């Protein structure tokens, strides 16, 4: 994203946060988007988180071959990795692909079929009506999905360890309850909030300024996912550096 695009992105955000014409209609739209972003992504996040947790347990067990290191450490490492990094970041990258491309395509199609022009002619703030509900659903539902992802990832680790015999259930449970620092949850939720904003606002920007037809809409969608993923990784580093 060069400086011109960044400037346009900021200006778009400025118009997104204008006062809504009718709050009731916006609330209805927010509820619809929350259902799509949250409930609609639950299954995908559940599957990914559970398997990542299970695989993490197996890999940590494989690397910890020393007799001097207690096996309970597998649970501790899995817990902190899931909470701090895997759940927020992997979930966000997966959601950028699923939700980001859908947002970009939807808004881009509306642009090329003049539906956005129609909104503006009616006197409706098109960025506000189309993008604000998506951003609000992103910043609220992504943290909720991340909380569920944390739980499932740690549970997946338990299942993976138990089924493979890499770690006993009691050692794993002892590991995940030892030296737990609740602050890691705060860091993860801050990340999830930032990622939720990126996942919704960047694709919305890409879709909103599409010019052309179907080809340009698909290109914008691809660009939206790529830029979102890179932005997520950059912000992941920045938030970690700032908060830890």
């Amino acid at each position, binding site marked *: 994203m060069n400086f011109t695009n960044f400037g346009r992105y900021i200006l778009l955000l400025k118009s997104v946060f204008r006062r809504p*014409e*009718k709050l009731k*209609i916006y609330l209805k739209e927010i509820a619809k988007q929350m259902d799509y972003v949250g409930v609609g992504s639950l299954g995908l996040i559940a599957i990914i988180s559970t398997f990542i947790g299970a695989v993490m347990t197996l890999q940590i067990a494989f690397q910890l071959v020393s007799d001097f290191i207690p096996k309970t450490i597998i649970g501790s490492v899995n817990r902190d990795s899931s909470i701090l990094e895997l759940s927020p970041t992997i979930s966000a990258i997966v959601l950028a692909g699923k939700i980001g491309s859908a947002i970009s395509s939807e808004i881009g*199609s509306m642009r090329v*079929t*003049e*539906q956005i*022009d*129609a909104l*503006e*002619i*009616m*006197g*409706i703030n098109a960025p506000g009506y189309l993008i604000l509900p998506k951003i609000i659903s992103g910043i609220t539902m992504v943290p909720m999905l991340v909380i569920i992802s944390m739980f499932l990832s740690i549970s997946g680790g338990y299942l993976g360890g138990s089924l493979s015999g890499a770690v006993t259930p009691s050692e794993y449970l002892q590991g995940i309850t030892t030296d737990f620092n609740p602050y890691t949850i705060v860091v993860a939720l801050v990340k999830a909030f930032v990622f939720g904003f990126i996942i919704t606002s960047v694709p919305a920007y890409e879709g909103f300024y599409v010019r052309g037809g179907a080809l340009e809409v698909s290109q914008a969608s691809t660009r939206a996912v790529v830029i979102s993923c890179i932005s997520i990784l950059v912000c992941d580093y920045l938030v970690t550096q700032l908060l830890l």
Partner: protein
Amino acid sequence: MIEVKDIYKSFSGNDVLKGISGKFEEGVTNLIIGGSGSGKTTLLKCMVGLHQPDSGSVLYDGRDFTPMTYEQRIEVRKEIGMLFQGSALFDSMTVEDNIMFPLNMFTNQTRKEKLERVNFCLERVNLAGKNALFPAELSGGMKKRVGIARAISMNPKYLFCDEPNSGLDPKTSIVIDELIQELTEEFKTTTIVVTHDMNSVMGIGDYILFLHEGKKFWEGSNKEIAHTDIKELNDFVFASSFMKAAKDKF
């Protein structure tokens, strides 16, 4: 009445509009005609504020639209209805919801009142009972008519139509033209139609503004257009041998 004064617009150094002026009266059907790339859609978009002109002004009953703030423009836009070339219906909404959408946004009417207005608009465009259909289930002509119904739902003072006949068969085109003319006379709207359909020009052109290469070349009525000697206009209007033969009979 809408008046445009000395409108200039260029894109990346390419001059599209070069000092267009004209007056569009209320209660009559005003046509902007011209070949592809002549600047007619750009002029329309400058008039409704989708493009900002480089210079010049657009006056809505004396109110200069171009220097207005966002909030002031919103107030004027509430008085505008527009039919888009591709109808621009919201895909995710039914016909009823499409027409009701501006009413939901800007009025405090009850559901019953809004439904009455929707049904009135649908009846007016001969689509009564089609409330529950989605845009994907409509033919091209029906989409245009729903577009018109949505455009008139807020009882607009100004009605803009961007190529209302594009992609339609001649019979449906005439139906749409007649509908636009009837609504203009019935509701006394200031109607501006951008078209290059010759049936529309001859049928409903109370006032015609002809653009060529971004300039105003001619203005007049459909009765006067047959008697003009301007080469560019004759080349455009009477391009086909059928139209040439028709002109000779005038």
